[in-house]
């Protein structure tokens, strides 16, 4: 019992132009277990899942499901065979009801028409089994992210699913929502469903998974029982070297007395009465739950959104920041949360993306000097240790971590004095994470300052000189380094006061 094999990956290979995404990967997943798939960005996890679900086809090797050689033509094909996927990003159709979304593409029909009654009966039953407090006839628009995730899982269960894979399911969930998700996963496990779980958060792996398989650079490294391993060992296997505990300052604080940025009574969409000071050489954290409006605050600082009222002073000078252009001119930069949609220009190569925010620097009049731009690329590619040194390589073809490095280099190029990092390590692998932390330290060592918005407690506690905690658009606490610990931050983030 328990030794029955649900999925067998047999010598899988996959090539993309310039990349060996998978090389001779073989391992198996037991029936009814939660199996974590670990690896840095670009290790081949997504590729493997894509092939499993019929999104992509392998160039070599086979997948055996319940001992039978299988190759799906597309995701629907996989769904019919009972293999579903819960994506990192949630794609639902806003105009349709919850029930319609769950059944989308596989509606129950009565003749040519949809049999809503039967369909909703089936979807309602699934929602109840998941413990959802909303029904099939509700609309998507009123739901939270966590509830939407439940719909995605319900969608998976709508088919007679026996295998579900999760791709970074907690990336955009609050901690309460994450707990709910974990309960659901335990419940599914008790029903005998086999689950593949991809995540960068090792804590989750230890909480949920029975076994974990590790990929590195497209190669299979090993599979281990989670109960018999340690975090350090997993990380070592993922990175291929020892990584010191990463969210930690390696150098003494550079924070000085001089006030660089002074914000007073800033109000805007969803937040109000935001006042704080940022000192020279300081890393100031912004902590809080999802929905605390931290991103909205920093967007207003940079000019990406307009504040309604309040004042922003930079080096004692009153600033009017009405657009991102004003923000940049004042010396503020923003490394935004969503790399793909807000971070870089997909049609541009690394060299152009790095130069984008500071293009006038490389221009004579308005004519761009390509040589200077290339020099700049070489300088910063070295500094951020970008893995691909070809300036013509398209940024969109880099791994997530390296994309983040290019964006960071863009802001370094633009000579900003205050750089806002909004969730800089979201979806970034451990190796790159520690590199980003080192670059942050390097940045402040030259007298510049950082605002760090992060949902990762370790990051706030380890990296910040001080931290502001927000709840529902208001500041509930400004904590000095000594008070930065999980309990204190959480109680201010959840209750708005010290418990």
């Amino acid at each position, binding site marked *: 019992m328990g030794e029955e094999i649900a999925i067998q990956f047999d010598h899988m290979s996959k*090539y*993309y*132009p*310039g990349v060996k995404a998978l090389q001779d990967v073989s391992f198996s997943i037991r029936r009814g277990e939660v199996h974590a798939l670990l690896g840095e960005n670009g290790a081949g996890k997504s590729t493997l899942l894509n092939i499993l679900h019929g999104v992509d086809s392998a*160039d070599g090797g086979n997948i055996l499901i319940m001992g039978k050689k299988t190759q799906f033509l597309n995701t629907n094909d996989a769904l019919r065979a009972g293999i579903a996927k819960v994506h990192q990003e949630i794609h639902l159709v806003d105009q349709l009801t919850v029930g319609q979304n769950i059944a989308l593409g596989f509606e129950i029909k009565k003749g040519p028409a949809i049999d809503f009654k039967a369909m909703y009966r089936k979807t309602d039953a699934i929602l109840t089994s998941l413990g959802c407090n909303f029904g099939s006839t509700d609309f998507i628009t009123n739901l939270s992210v966590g509830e939407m995730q439940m719909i995605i899982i319900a969608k998976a269960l709508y088919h007679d699913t026996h295998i579900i894979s999760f791709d970074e399911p907690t990336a955009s969930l609050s901690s309460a929502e994450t707990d709910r998700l974990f309960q659901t996963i335990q419940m599914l496990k008790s029903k005998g469903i086999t689950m593949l779980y991809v995540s960068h958060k090792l804590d989750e792996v230890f909480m949920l998974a029975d076994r974990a398989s590790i990929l590195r650079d497209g190669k299979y490294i090993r599979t281990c029982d989670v109960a018999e391993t340690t975090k350090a060992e997993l990380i070592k296997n993922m990175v291929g070297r020892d990584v010191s505990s990463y969210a930690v300052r390696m150098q003494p604080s550079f924070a000085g007395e001089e006030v660089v940025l002074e914000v007073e009574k800033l109000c805007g969409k969803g937040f109000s009465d935001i006042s704080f000071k940022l000192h020279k050489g300081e890393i100031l954290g912004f902590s809080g739950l999802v929905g605390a409006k931290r991103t909205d605050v920093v967007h207003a600082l*940079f000019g*990406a959104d307009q504040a309604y009222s309040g004042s922003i002073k930079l080096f004692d000078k009153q600033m009017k920041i009405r*657009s*991102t*252009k004003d*923000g*940049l*001119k004042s010396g503020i*930069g*923003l490394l*935004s949360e969503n790399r793909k*949609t*807000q*971070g*870089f*220009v*997909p*049609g*541009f190569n690394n060299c*152009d993306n790095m130069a*984008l*925010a500071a*293009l*006038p620097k490389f*221009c004579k009049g*308005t*004519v*761009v000097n390509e040589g200077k731009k290339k020099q700049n690329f070489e300088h910063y590619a070295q500094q951020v240790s970008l893995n691909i040194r070809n300036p*013509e390589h398209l940024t969109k073809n880099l791994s997530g971590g390296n994309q983040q490095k290019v964006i960071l280099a*863009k802001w370094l190029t*633009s000579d900003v004095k205050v750089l806002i990092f909004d969730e800089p390590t979201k979806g970034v692998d451990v190796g790159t994470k520690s590199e980003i932390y080192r670059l942050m330290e390097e940045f402040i060592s030259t007298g510049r300052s950082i605002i760090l918005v992060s949902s990762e407690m370790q990051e706030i506690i380890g990296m910040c000189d001080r931290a502001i905690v927000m709840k529902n658009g208001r500041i509930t606490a400004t904590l000095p380094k000594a008070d930065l610990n999980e309990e204190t931050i959480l109680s201010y983030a959840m209750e708005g006061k010290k418990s």
Partner: protein
Amino acid sequence: MNGVKNVAKRYSRELTIFAVLILIILIFTMQEPRYIEVGNLLDILEQATINGFLAIGVTFAIITGGIDLSVGSVMALSIVACGQLAVMGLPPIAVLAIGLVLGIFLGALNGLLITKMKLQPFIATLGTNSVLRGMAYLVTGGWPVLNIPKGYRNLFQVQIFHNIRLYMVYLIIAAIILSLILKRTSTGVYIYAVGSNEEATRLSGINVDRFKICAYIFCGAMAAMAGMVTLAKLGTGEPTAGQGYELNAVAAAAIGGASLAGGKGSILGTMIGALTLSALKVGLVVIGMDTFYQYIATGLIIIIAAYFEIIQGKIAAVIFMRKR
């Protein structure tokens, strides 16, 4: 060798469509040897001029991720306005300057509708297309402007040698200038950036509205040029001119590699696209085919060119796999 490879890679789309153009010329030449004669080739160039002006302008709008459907009407309005000014006896250079200002103004108007009022480019320019067409009729009361003075016509029409006329030289100059703006200046970089990812561009501290408006200004100015050249060529100014030309312009840009999703396209590609359409048109006339086929052939070229873009990636992947 590496340099050649890089150039080939960077201009792959332009080279491909150029190969198609050569292929079309070869096919027609096999059918009818006179097709390859210099006179006929110049005729192809001549036939591509008006569409060339319109298409290089529209390319700017398309690269920002938009489109300009009003170029035919901008062209008509510049025809009747410049026609009347020329008949009134204004010096030709002054007419040319006023025409360009008119084009710039109308382009800016489109740009403002799209950026400040946040209208979709398709809808905004569909609207201005109709408004401006109506205004072109109003300016002349529906009648054509007749007897365009020789001085004005000479500014565009003078023969340099053979059949090469001054306006063709203007097109080449305009294309070179616009191409340099697009490839070598920060304005050009921002126009590509906006089309490829507007949000990321905005969040890099760039005033995206400004560069979108800029693109529509170039588009308007080129449409006005097309109008002024037409006026000089025909010697009369028809308010009905340019109807449906916007689609030919979009077609030339699309064949030349511009993507309606934005962020892609080049002036060189668009010029070759315009030449391809014209080579096809002239070729069908030369071999004595019905002009009805012209529509079919044009449509097929657009579809094939667009499809080629899709399969190019797959072909590259196959070649790559063979190499390993």
